[in-house]
């Protein structure tokens, strides 16, 4: 992977009072949804739930259904990206709310979104499978949208000043300027984040198909439900089938979607030196097919027509500040905001005082602490394994260019399919499950560490290598004063991503089952998973908020300062 995820450096490390306000509002919103859930605690009747079959010939259609869910979620994510990313980039006021809000939403585990919202979606479509479908798609959406919005927002914010001036010289309308200058400029970052989101969302597609609701499990047809049933029935063969099926699906997805899109996005890059030997046979075919060439020209024509829609090309005097509100209204909207804030605060207090015991709060804090120890232990273990290997690969560019597509592939493979294998081994060797379920958390996200280390090693200038050789720097000193500091910003970027994903995965990893055997590790993920199964939304929200606070805390006070320190030290 050429680029690496960069935590936004827009806000400083100090906690802004707005962060706290926002957090309270998010908390209150979650409580409200929970309250709505409790209003309808009666068992839900969905008529005849679709039967999941464990025969292998059902798998292709299940895989297709899972993929379809992911694509629908991607459509919504794109919509949200264009609306909120643009809005945040254009209005200072909206920016100051959306960007920190995304920070908070990113810290909320995806599967909690599922548990919290499923009741609402079911009420929207009573007696219909559309409810759980929507809940599942919404969960996948929350796994995709946040970083896409951020990436698009940054792409629009970083349009070179001179290009904006060219647009002005041509008197482009804001609509045309958006489609002709801003969107193309944001394209590489948007596509890159789309790819990251797609890879991550395979995991959650699989995890969000078997939905627990009011002590009842709804299984949506898909690979995730297939594997859930296989676990329940302790069917080794079915698990093997699911893994093989998913391998094939990911290979197809990788070749048909991932690589062509990545190749296409290079068109929007301005730097020429980036020599990529990654090729795509699909692109080759597309480029040589005449019919497709015509359809490309047609598409371009449609895009041009779209970009000059006359309704939007009218000059609007508000262009400079599309949200300029008269002073009096501004004051009012501030009032509105404060009233909203106070209401949120009261609501949160009400819930915390009435519905949750202090004991429970202390418990979730303690459990979060255990999970955070697990996360750090796993980051350390996978670093010890992957940093030397990554450096070894990065020093050999030929191997690196061959190995990168493989890592991209591994990162997309939903690691939760492999969980049963680990559980079987734990049972077979009678291992301590408190310790041995822990590696499951990092199974899917360890690759971020590996490929960031590879990219970092590749990025070290040749001359510094020569200088190090020339001075005879070897062994311990070579690692300490050369390689480690040089790859530090990249490594930390990878570690941040991996840690975030590990928190998310803890909900599945700390509560694994095999037939009737439940391996329940002590931690906040297990806590959330346990109460999600019984449909106790209040406890799920409490656990989620605790986890959210921990994640935000570590991001603000550990990862971001580390990242800023590493990058400022690396500047030449």
């Amino acid at each position, binding site marked *: 992977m050429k680029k690496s995820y960069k935590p936004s450096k827009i806000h400083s490390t100090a906690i802004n009072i707005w962060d706290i306000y926002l957090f309270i509002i998010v908390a209150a919103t979650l409580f409200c949804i929970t309250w709505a859930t409790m209003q309808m605690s009666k068992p839900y009747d969905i008529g005849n739930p679709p039967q999941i079959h464990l025969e292998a010939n059902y798998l292709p259609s299940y895989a297709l259904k899972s993929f379809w869910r992911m694509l629908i979620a991607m459509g919504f994510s794109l919509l949200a990206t264009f609306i909120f990313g643009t809005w945040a980039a254009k209005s200072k006021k909206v920016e100051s709310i959306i960007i920190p809000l995304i920070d908070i939403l990113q810290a909320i585990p995806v599967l909690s979104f599922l548990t919290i919202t499923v009741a609402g979606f079911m009420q929207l479509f009573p007696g219909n499978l559309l409810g759980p479908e929507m809940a599942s798609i919404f969960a996948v959406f929350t796994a995709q949208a946040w970083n896409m919005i951020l990436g698009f927002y940054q792409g629009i914010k970083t349009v*070179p000043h*001179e*290009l904006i*001036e*060219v647009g*002005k*010289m*041509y*008197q*482009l309308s804001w609509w*045309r300027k958006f489609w*002709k*200058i801003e969107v*193309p*400029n944001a*394209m590489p970052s948007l596509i890159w984040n789309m790819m990251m989101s797609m890879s991550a969302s395979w995991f959650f597609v699989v995890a969000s198909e078997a939905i627990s609701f009011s002590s009842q499990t709804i299984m949506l047809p898909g690979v995730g439900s297939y594997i859930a049933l296989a676990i329940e029935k302790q069917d080794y063969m079915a698990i093997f089938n699911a893994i093989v099926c998913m391998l094939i699906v990911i290979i197809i997805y990788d070749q048909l979607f991932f690589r062509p899109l990545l190749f296409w996005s290079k*068109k*929007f*890059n*301005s*730097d*020429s030196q980036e020599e990529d030997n990654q090729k795509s046979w699909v692109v080759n075919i597309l480029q040589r097919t005449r019919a497709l060439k015509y359809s490309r020209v047609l598409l371009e024509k449609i895009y*041009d027509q779209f970009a*000059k829609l006359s309704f939007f090309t009218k000059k609007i005097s508000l262009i400079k500040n599309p949200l300029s509100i008269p002073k009096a209204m501004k004051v009012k909207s501030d009032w509105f905001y404060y009233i909203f804030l106070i209401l949120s605060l009261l609501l949160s207090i009400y819930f915390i005082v009435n519905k949750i015991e202090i004991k429970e709060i202390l418990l979730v804090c303690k459990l979060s602490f255990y999970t955070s120890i697990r996360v750090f232990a796993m980051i350390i273990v996978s670093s010890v394994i992957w940093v030397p290997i990554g450096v070894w690969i990065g020093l050999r560019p030929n191997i690196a260019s061959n190995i990168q597509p493989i890592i991209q592939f591994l990162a997309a493979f939903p690691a939760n399919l492999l969980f049963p294998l680990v559980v079987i081994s734990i049972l077979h060797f009678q291992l301590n499950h408190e310790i041995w379920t822990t590696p499951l958390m990092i199974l899917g996200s360890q690759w971020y560490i590996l490929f960031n280390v590879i990219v970092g090693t590749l990025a070290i200038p040749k001359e510094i290598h020569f200088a190090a050789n020339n001075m005879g720097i070897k062994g311990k000193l070579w690692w300490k004063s050369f390689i480690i500091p040089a790859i530090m910003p990249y490594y930390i970027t990878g570690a941040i991503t991996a840690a975030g994903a590990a928190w998310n995965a803890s909900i599945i990893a700390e509560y694994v089952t095999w037939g009737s055997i439940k391996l329940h590790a002590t931690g906040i993920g297990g806590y959330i998973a346990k109460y999600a199964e019984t449909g106790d939304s209040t406890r799920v929200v409490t656990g989620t908020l605790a986890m959210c606070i921990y994640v935000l805390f570590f991001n603000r006070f550990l990862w971001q300062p580390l990242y800023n*320190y590493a990058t*400022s*030290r690396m500047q030449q």
Partner: protein
Amino acid sequence: MKLLKANNISKTFINNGSDNKILADLNFELKDGEIVAILGKSGSGKSTFLRILAGLIQPSSGEILYRDNAVTEPVKGIGMVFQNFALMPWLTVLENVELGLEALGINREERRTRAIDAIDMIGLDGFESAYPKELSGGMKQRVGFARALVMNPDILIMDEPFSALDVLTAENLKTDLLELWQNKKTGTNGILFVTHNIEEALMLSNKIVIMSSNPGKIAGSVDVNLPYPRNYQDPEFLRLVDVIYTLITANITHNKKKSSLIKSNLGLGYRIPEVSTDEIMGLIETIYTDFESEKTIDLPKLSDHLAMDIDDLLPITEALETLELANVFDGDIKISETGVKFFNADLLERKKIFAKQLLKNIPLARAIRNRLDEASFSQISEKHCLELITPYLSAKESQKVMRTMIDWGRYAEIFAYNFNENMLTLENPN
């Protein structure tokens, strides 16, 4: 016939509540058939002025008239060429050139013919389907020209169009541009461009307007009546180079006279030229060793000898002058007595002299040192020092000045600096 006219243009940026005047009372006109060059050092606001003329930036006061109509936003008759080309990286050469026509709502066929004509005219045939990243700098700027010319502009405005190119490429492009202009191949009636290269201005223009800085003003103008193509070695050409140097440096001397009367009033807001201590010493050594026989040296000669633009050379001479290591007057430079002592000293002695001159002549250095002497742990934060100058300078300029100040101060050993903590201290670490 006046194509473009500027009446009493001023521009003020508001910064931390205090006003920051960039341009003051500029008057200017471009007549039919003229090529005018605006010449000035970096920081003189010449690019800002050009953007005001193009309608991209609004002046704080004054007005711009294009063919007697007020300009408040970009107008159709004015085309622009940018310093760093400003091509859309995701569009091919042809699509880049077509973009402006497309904005006018011209249909696909016509804009293709017109774009191909412009591409041929500027010598880009064969590159129509290339992306900008495949092109060299010179070719990229040709696309920049084609893109402006395809709109058939009445006036062509160019912001340092050749400064991102190497010497030979720039020369080639200038010749081609002049040829187009003289053969009236375009419908363009006037050209206006900004440069910091005196020879470039003299090669191309009929009139050179010289801008001075702090705030940007018009220091004078020179008419150039030489026939094209012009020759660098022509005596008249060389005389004009000298005249322009005198005009530019006269301005510095003028400021100097004013400030030397009330010397201590060279305030905290003084914009320390962005020059390294190596460059300061390098220039003294060059003057002393390469021109030893001469007492005063002609600046054009020095610039020629070092192959440096005024943009590079004048900040260094200004630094020398402010530190009283040299005197600059009427386009000449002379090393002062202190400068001679500085040259003859060894490494440690040089630092001492530099420190003395720094504390004597730069108020900011004095202020920082005083604060440090008073500070409890002999250390103050960089932010604290920045606050000393932010009332006078924009945020960006304050940063630049502070960086130069830290560089000079570290060399002179009047203070040390800790990068990780952004702290200035009295002692060196360890």
